């Protein structure tokens, strides 16, 4: 039985975290995501499920607390917003290098620097192109509704444990702050320590018992050949993610001559643009990447024969457009539209940009 509630995206994520049976949350306040830790502190999950919630002294401390909890096989999540995520990047690189399952949430605000607290999607490059140092990738989920803020917590942990890899939920100030209807799943009990050891005892540091080799969590390999093997192993995982766990959604694409590609809040806003355009007889569809890595390259490529132009709509100065261009191998002209600095584009603005492209260059 699921429960229907009206919640903010940030609150829905926090409630879902308790309900999936997570073991711990570590975070540091920052707008526009402070509701996550505020909600958890109010809900007292330590009484509901025994989950640990701690306000760290900084984002650096928080991500390293995540590293610690994840090394022991526990289900752990941290959330922050752009400047805080920048601080977490060292830790995220370590999580990837040490092959630890963990979920990181970024409720993006405008940058660079201290920037603004208003919504933005300017952390696309940081999220999908590495961000931290070294050869690694994050599996990146981009929720576009409050429901997905809740649902993706479970999905993210599934992927994190399937691959033993960090997963990023890339949200933004719109999705985090708005309220919508959300159906919350029933409480899943937390794993007992025995169950955890049974499942993850082969790698997690839980105390060396008789009859098994000791477990070591590290991202260090001083021998280059060994380090290279480690990197190759990581790359294999990312290939498997591309084959098995890429996700996207298509809206009104069947007869589309033009396509908007947008994720998260931009996808929601662009959906309205599609409605407005269709009323004017413009055949436009929307492709919404749900995972930003792995990127829906093939679905995009498959659409190219019918398309005259693609508009990449993002709340930034043009970042995802590069992946759109690579996906369609430059076979279709691709343009970017997006407001920056925390200004949110409106459905009408996007439509205007689209019409201009259609009239001036795509005909």
């Amino acid at each position, binding site marked *: 039985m699921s429960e229907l509630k009206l919640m903010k995206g940030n609150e829905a994520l926090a409630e879902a975290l308790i309900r999936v049976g997570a073991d711990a949350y570590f975070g540091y*306040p920052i707008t526009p995501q402070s509701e996550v*830790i505020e909600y958890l*502190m109010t809900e007292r999950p330590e009484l509901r499920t025994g989950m640990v919630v701690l306000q760290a002294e900084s984002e650096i401390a928080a991500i390293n607390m995540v590293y610690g909890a994840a090394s022991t096989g526990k289900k752990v999540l941290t959330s922050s917003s752009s400047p805080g995520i920048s601080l977490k990047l060292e830790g995220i690189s370590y999580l990837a290098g040490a092959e630890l399952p963990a979920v990181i949430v970024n409720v993006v605000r405008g940058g660079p620097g*201290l920037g603004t607290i208003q919504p933005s999607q300017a952390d696309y490059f940081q999220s999908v192109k590495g961000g931290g140092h070294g050869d690694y990738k994050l599996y990146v989920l981009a929720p576009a509704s409050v429901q997905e803020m809740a649902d993706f917590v479970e999905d993210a942990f599934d992927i994190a444990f399937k691959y033993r890899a960090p997963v990023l939920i890339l949200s933004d100030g719109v999705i985090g702050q708005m309220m919508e209807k959300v159906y919350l799943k029933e409480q899943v009990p937390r794993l007992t320590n025995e169950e955890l050891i049974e499942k993850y005892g082969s790698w997690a540091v839980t105390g060396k018992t008789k009859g098994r080799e000791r477990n070591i969590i590290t991202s260090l390999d001083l021998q280059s050949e060994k380090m290279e093997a480690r990197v190759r192993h990581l790359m294999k995982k990312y290939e498997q993610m591309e084959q098995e766990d890429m996700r996207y959604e298509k809206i009104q694409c069947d007869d589309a001559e033009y396509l908007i590609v947008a994720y998260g809040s931009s996808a929601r806003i662009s959906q309205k643009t599609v409605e407005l355009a269709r009323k004017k007889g413009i055949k436009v569809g929307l492709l919404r990447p749900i995972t930003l890595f792995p990127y829906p390259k093939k679905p995009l490529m498959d659409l190219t024969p019918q398309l005259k132009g693609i508009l990449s709509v993002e709340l930034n100065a043009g970042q995802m457009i590069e992946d759109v261009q690579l996906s369609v191998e430059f076979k279709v002209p691709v343009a970017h539209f997006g407001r920056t600095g925390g200004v949110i584009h409106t459905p009408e603005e996007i439509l205007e940009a689209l019409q201009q492209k259609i009239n001036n260059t795509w005909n």
Partner: protein
Amino acid sequence: MELIDIIRPENQVFCKTKLMTDIPLSYCPGCGHGTAHNIVMEVIDEMGIVEDTIGVAPVGCSVLAYDFMNIDITQAAHGRAPAVATAISRIWPEKYVFTYQGDGDLAAIGTGETIHACNRGENIVIVFVNNGIYGMTGGQMAPTTLPNMPSSTSPYGRDTTTMGFPLKMTELVANLPGVYFVSRQSVHTHKHARKAKKAIEKAFENTRLKKGLSFVEIVSNCNSGWKMTPIESNIWMEENMFPYFPLGDIKVDGILK
């Protein structure tokens, strides 16, 4: 006496601090940040050192200090002001360099930078405004939040068994040999503000004499974060903050009191 006589310069008893800009303060009415800004600017003005002063603003409500303080200011990342100030003072040893930081900035995310700048005895002034809460982000628990004090991330009051105790950064840094002067003051009454101003004067004087680090804490209110009226918050501060964070000099001329 005619009006014109009353407003003669020699009859003036108070004027706007010269080094404050005309931009309206963005602080909540009743907040201590405004007075703290004022006295720092008065000291710089009265010492005639504005041309040789470089300020470092934090991330917190006073992130906008650069809008109000009419001096050269650089704005640092959250918690990093002491590191930024270190570099400036090392490269410009003849300058007066000061940071102005809140408790989240100085005593949580910036603990490392604070302790190490103090430990190196950098020739800077640190003005530390302790209001026991994160004002800017909407009233979350700070390292200096009092036991059992509610905040948005300690809604049932700070539970010291899981959230630790209020951090007395000022006493902590006073024990470091590099730190020359440490004082804790407040600005909620004229009398207190005058004392605080004296302490800040002494701090800048120490910089002039190249004595090392001077650390002035100002225990202040955050009426919005505490969810009180300004007057209630000042009474609450006297009754609850001062016993935990007692006012007065803690280290003078390198000697602990």
